[in-house]
């Protein structure tokens, strides 16, 4: 009884303190969820560069993995809490500075992710049809900045450099039968291009061995089961992986090693099928071609070190050339700094932090703070952890002792700059519109890829 009265009061009372979360992806939403639950009398505003929420859940998760996107239901519940607001179309570092934001809010939590890709830094990277995986993901997922991507799929062979789950996602989308992709929320323009693709073979190239590959077992199993596609391994890559080694591996590594070995044993090369071909112990050294790429030069690597998980690759003099007319680099994402005052680690591509804390009242979580690794569970766990640290710091660092204007302060400067703010109602209009557009062609959704159009719909 007493509890109920207390909760009611907290809503009646004006929010005294203000928290701003920058970036409406999984880290931002999970942190908001935890803070909203545990911190009383506080307004939580999530601001986002794009007019639409959900970050990599919308723009990173592959279109044929709709189940993974179910987290959107939880995020939506968080956004609809009385003390949580979403404000889209506001870019930190451009529309508002970090200093201004810290003046308006008691606490600022940066969760704007890792939106840049690492480059290969080898000759030939500028050639036509050498494309970062991130741009291809953005292209098929409808990220506005990638809608006009130039990619030539009138080719037979592609080489993906890198063996993480993003690399496997791109391989799978390029090799999946078109009738499967048609049922997803993949953008109509990429679907059309992929439907005309002549691609027969996709290499997945890693510098270390099968036991060090970064892809997870679910993604590998999907490739092995992919319709009209066979996985072809180089048997030699598995020469040193005997039962004695496998038995000593921790369960996750052991299971994926066993799955690979089983596939190596059973592999057959079917003439008519498309081919997915993981290649190990190779580092790219040169991309060759006149204007367009036509060959990739690889150095042969050996592994050094005792411990299997931390063995490092070392290049030998030996080289290998493979023919390919499309090269996709997928060697990781990195973040960028939005403000010179941030202690940004250029090498790691993250903001330096201690358990999420950057400075008094300033925090970071998700890939911006940890680097671009892990699945949604990893980000969720990190976001809850950083939120918990913030809660501990509130009394310790007197974070709520000063009264700050919160959104009214931010809104004033955005008004001056004529920035249109998309709130949750605006997003709901875009959401409804996309679902209706998708229905016309039997898709769950057809994403709006033009920011101008998003704004038109949101303010209609």
């Amino acid at each position, binding site marked *: 009884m007493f509890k109920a009265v207390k909760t009611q009061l907290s809503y009646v009372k004006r929010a005294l303190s203000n928290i701003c979360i920058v970036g409406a992806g999984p880290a931002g939403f*999970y942190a908001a*969820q*935890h803070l909203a*639950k545990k911190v009383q009398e506080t307004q939580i505003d999530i601001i986002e560069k794009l007019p639409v929420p959900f970050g990599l859940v919308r723009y990173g998760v592959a279109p044929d*993995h709709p*189940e*993974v996107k*179910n*987290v959107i*239901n*939880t995020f939506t519940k968080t956004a609809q809490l009385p003390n949580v607001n979403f404000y889209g179309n506001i870019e930190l570092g451009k529309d508002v500075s970090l200093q201004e934001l810290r003046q308006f809010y008691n606490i600022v939590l940066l969760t704007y992710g890792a939106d840049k890709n690492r480059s290969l830094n080898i000759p030939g990277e500028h050639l036509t049809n050498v494309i970062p995986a991130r741009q291809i993901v953005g292209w098929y997922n409808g990220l506005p900045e990638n809608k006009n991507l130039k990619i030539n799929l009138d080719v037979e062979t592609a080489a993906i450099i890198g063996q993480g789950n993003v690399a496997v996602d791109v391989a799978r989308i390029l090799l999946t039968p078109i009738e499967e992709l048609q049922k997803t929320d993949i953008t109509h323009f990429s679907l059309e291009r992929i439907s005309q693709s002549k691609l027969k073979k996709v290499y997945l190239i890693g510098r270390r061995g099968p036991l060090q590959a970064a892809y*997870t*077992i*679910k993604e590998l*199993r999907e490739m092995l089961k992919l319709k009209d596609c066979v996985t072809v391994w180089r048997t030699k890559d598995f020469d040193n992986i005997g039962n004695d080694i496998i038995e000593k591996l921790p*369960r*996750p590594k052991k*299971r*994926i090693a066993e799955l690979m070995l089983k596939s190596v044993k059973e592999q057959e090369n079917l003439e008519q099928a498309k081919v997915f071909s993981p290649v190990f112990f190779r580092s790219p050294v040169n991309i060759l071609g006149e204007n367009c790429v036509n060959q990739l030069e690889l150095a042969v690597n050996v592994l050094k070190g005792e411990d299997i998980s931390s063995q490092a690759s070392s290049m030998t003099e030996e080289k290998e050339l493979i023919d390919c007319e499309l090269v996709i680099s997928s060697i990781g994402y990195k973040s960028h700094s939005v403000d010179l005052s941030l202690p940004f680690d250029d090498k790691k591509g993250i903001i330096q932090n201690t*358990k*999420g804390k950057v400075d008094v009242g300033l925090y970071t*979580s998700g890939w911006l*703070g*940890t680097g671009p690794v*892990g*699945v*949604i*569970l*990893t980000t*969720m*766990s*990190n976001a*809850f*952890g*950083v939120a*918990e*640290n913030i809660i501990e710091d509130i009394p310790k660092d007197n974070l709520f002792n000063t009264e700050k204007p919160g959104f009214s302060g931010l809104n004033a400067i955005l008004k001056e700059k004529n920035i249109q703010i998309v709130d949750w109602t605006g997003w709901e209009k875009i959401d409804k519109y996309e679902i209706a557009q998708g229905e016309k062609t039997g898709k769950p959704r057809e994403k709006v890829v033009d920011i101008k159009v998003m704004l038109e719909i949101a303010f209609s």
Partner: protein
Amino acid sequence: MALNVLRQTVKVKNLLFKTISFRYASGVQPLGQPELNKKEIDITFVKANGSRIKTKGKIGDSLLDVVVNNNIDLEGFGACEGTLTCSTCHLIFPKEIFDILPSKASDEELDMLDLAYELSDTSRLGCQIILTENLDGLEVTVPATINDARS
């Protein structure tokens, strides 16, 4: 347990006497109907901080259903809503219960468990555990979702 046997028997009978199934219509009907589904068993979730949450679950429901239907406060639990694409409903069972769980983990479930924190030999995903009568009094451990903020 008895209920399961009964269900199976009826299923078999249905197959055997398909042509005269109308005879069994009255006998089949109550199965899957609210009357029998009302049967509930006791379940206790033990959180990482030691706190215990006692609740009830309907036979035939999954442990994820139990958490959702009873609004059990387990933050982040069941993120993918039971579609086997995450491991946020990871639970650790006592060995003797783990051994008698109605189904063994599929490859797909194990694939997801492999990404879970604090993976143990008696780990399962809650969304894959369907309650049966012999699980009455079940005590299951919920691993912490908040890990070191650095990773």
